[in-house]
């Protein structure tokens, strides 16, 4: 589904990714762990198409397409979703409004009819309950005045509505208490199936107790230095990154 080969990326003349490789097959959950500044979030942003990042070498293929050739919105419509580490606030734009526009943009891309207000409302309400999201959160401006936990739950809620093929979760666990963490993890687990893949970026092994990955990768200084199964996360938790 996703193949990243020898990816080199610069930001402001500084090389952040230095030959990154990762292959994700349908249905797999990959976790990327690593110390601060190792380039984990950069990878997430590059996959989503952030313009400030300059790809100097390498290639990224997503479902047979050259991902780097696509605009951010085309990538989204092709099925890539990024749960942001820091979801931005958009004052005056109702949360539900952005989401309906987004869903309908995606449906239009696939040449499907847009969802009507009523249909969308029903869909949203079905998903909300499980995530403990209230009606008021839908009506409020996107992320404006949301608590840290509300922002993260909102990202997962958006993911559930948009039903991506590949979801990249960028430190979705940071700033969450244990109850919120479980809610978020359940939200992710309920979407796991043979056709959908996840890349879970995190500092802590804690999240991986709830979202159990198929593969764990250790990223240091812009590339993956070690890969393994879920037990690797446990090992990292005990020993830290000092050995790499």
């Amino acid at each position, binding site marked *: 589904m996703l193949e990243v080969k020898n990816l080199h990326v610069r930001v402001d003349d500084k090389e952040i990714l230095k030959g990154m490789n990762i292959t994700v097959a349908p249905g797999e959950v990959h976790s990327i762990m690593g110390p601060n500044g190792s380039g984990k979030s950069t990878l997430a942003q590059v996959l*989503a*198409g*952030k*313009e*400030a990042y300059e790809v100097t070498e390498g290639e990224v293929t997503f479902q047979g397409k050259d991902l780097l050739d696509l*605009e*951010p*919105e085309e*990538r*989204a*419509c092709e099925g890539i*979703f*990024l749960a*942001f580490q820091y*979801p*931005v606030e*958009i*004052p*005056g*734009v109702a949360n539900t*409004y*952005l*989401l309906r*526009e*987004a*869903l309908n*943009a*995606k449906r239009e*891309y696939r040449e499907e009819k847009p969802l009507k207000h009523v249909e969308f409302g029903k869909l949203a309400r079905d998903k909300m309950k499980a995530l403990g999201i209230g009606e008021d959160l839908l009506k409020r*401006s*996107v992320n404006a005045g949301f608590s840290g936990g509300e922002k993260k739950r909102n990202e997962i809620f*958006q993911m559930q509505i*948009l039903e991506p093929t590949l979801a990249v979760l960028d430190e979705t666990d940071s700033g969450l208490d244990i109850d919120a963490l479980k809610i978020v993890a359940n939200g992710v687990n309920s979407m796991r199936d043979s056709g959908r893949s996840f890349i879970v970026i995190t500092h802590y092994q804690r999240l991986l107790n709830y979202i159990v990955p198929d593969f764990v990768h250790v990223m240091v200084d812009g590339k993956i230095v070690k890969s393994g199964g879920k037990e690797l996360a446990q090992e990292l938790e005990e020993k830290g990154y000092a050995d790499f």
Partner: protein
Amino acid sequence: MSVDLEKLAQEEYKYGFVTDVEQEIAPKGLNEDVIRMISSKKNEPEWLLEWRLGAYERWKKMKEPRWAFLRYPKIDFNDISYYAAPKNNPRPKSLDEIDPEIKETYDKLGIPLEEQKMLAGVAVDAVFDSVSVFTTFKEKLAEEGVIFCSISEAVEEHPDLVRKYLGSVVPRGDNFYAALNSAVFTDGSFVYIPKGVRCPMELSTYFRINAENTGQFERTLIIAEEGSYVSYLEGCTAPQRDESQLHAAVVELIAHDDATIKYSTIQNWYPGDKQGKGGIYNFVTKRGRCIGRASRISWTQVETGSAITWKYPSCILEGDNSVGEFYSVALTNRLQQADTGTKMVHVGKNTSSTIISKGISAGEGQNIYRGLVEIGKNAEKARNYTQCDSMLIGDRCGAHTFPYIEVRNSTAHMEHEASTSKIGEDQMFYCRQRGLSAEDAVSLIVNGFCKEVFKELPFEFAVEAEKLLSVSLEGSVG
């Protein structure tokens, strides 16, 4: 993406067509003869002609104001024609008598003049160049005692009211453009709401400039008697032409005890082309007097058109406990310039005013907020809240803020908040990551930015305003 944007940029002003209709146009230039001609065309009484000539005398001695933060070539006032009217039956009694070309024009603009086709609950006065061509729902409104007609008709039918109030808010020598308007005003709307009446419909005037090399100088007068309520909306468009055209209007509002006037504007005059050629020069004086106790005047404006905008809808809060409000969205794209804001003059006790201004600059547009809050020495416990936000799209545009505050009474309570933000790359990326195109993302973010103002508009027009904003923003990213 750039290819699509170019395409969009070319079709962005949708109202730029010209109506082919036989018109009577006054020769270019301004002198007493032209004023006498206009006055006699309209069968005006002697006092009004004298009033016009007096305004002209003052105007001749005045200098064009240049204090605004605007750059434009000198206007040659003798190169403008001051009167243009369709030849066929300029004041039809029924819809059948209207020139079909003109009727079609309004259909194209989305303002059908047939009452059954209208938005439910909106009465329209349609002004075409210098004359009002039709007013809908007049009979229905008359049942409630509401007068809604063109100002020319009001001069004939209700001369006492016109004489009493004309110039009582904006005196004929008030400023250069108001004096010019007072000398040559041709048409506009007149509204009178009797005591205790809540006007049963939205009233609206649709201004259309059509003729070439003419100016539009309309004058609107709204009087709300004690305890009455009216919501009024004006819309405006003009053909796409290479030469700039002058629009210098005057609007006067009078609110008596406990009366409320809500005045909304959706201004979409032709803004000029990409090189800044053509477009309307919009020099407008709008002012309301809250004469009565607890009266209220609320201005809401959405300004997306014109090459040059010079406009400061104001409230004089004379009555105790009166309220003035100003909600504004001004968008400048390409080479548009807008110097706009308000004046809130607090005279009475416990008067309060609210100013919410949202300026959006894109392309090479320049957006200026200019506001004055004046608290007089007898205005005990006056309150003002001002919020002034600017948003920049791209790095070639500008936003400027000139807030003036003059307080002569120590019991006043003033609040002022201001912000300038660049449309966030992060906000854009967030929306695009969710699947929205760059264009849609800008329009979504900007509409969110303007929410507080749009919610003041009557519902149908709020939807219209959002669409208009999106269209005006086309070509602003990429």
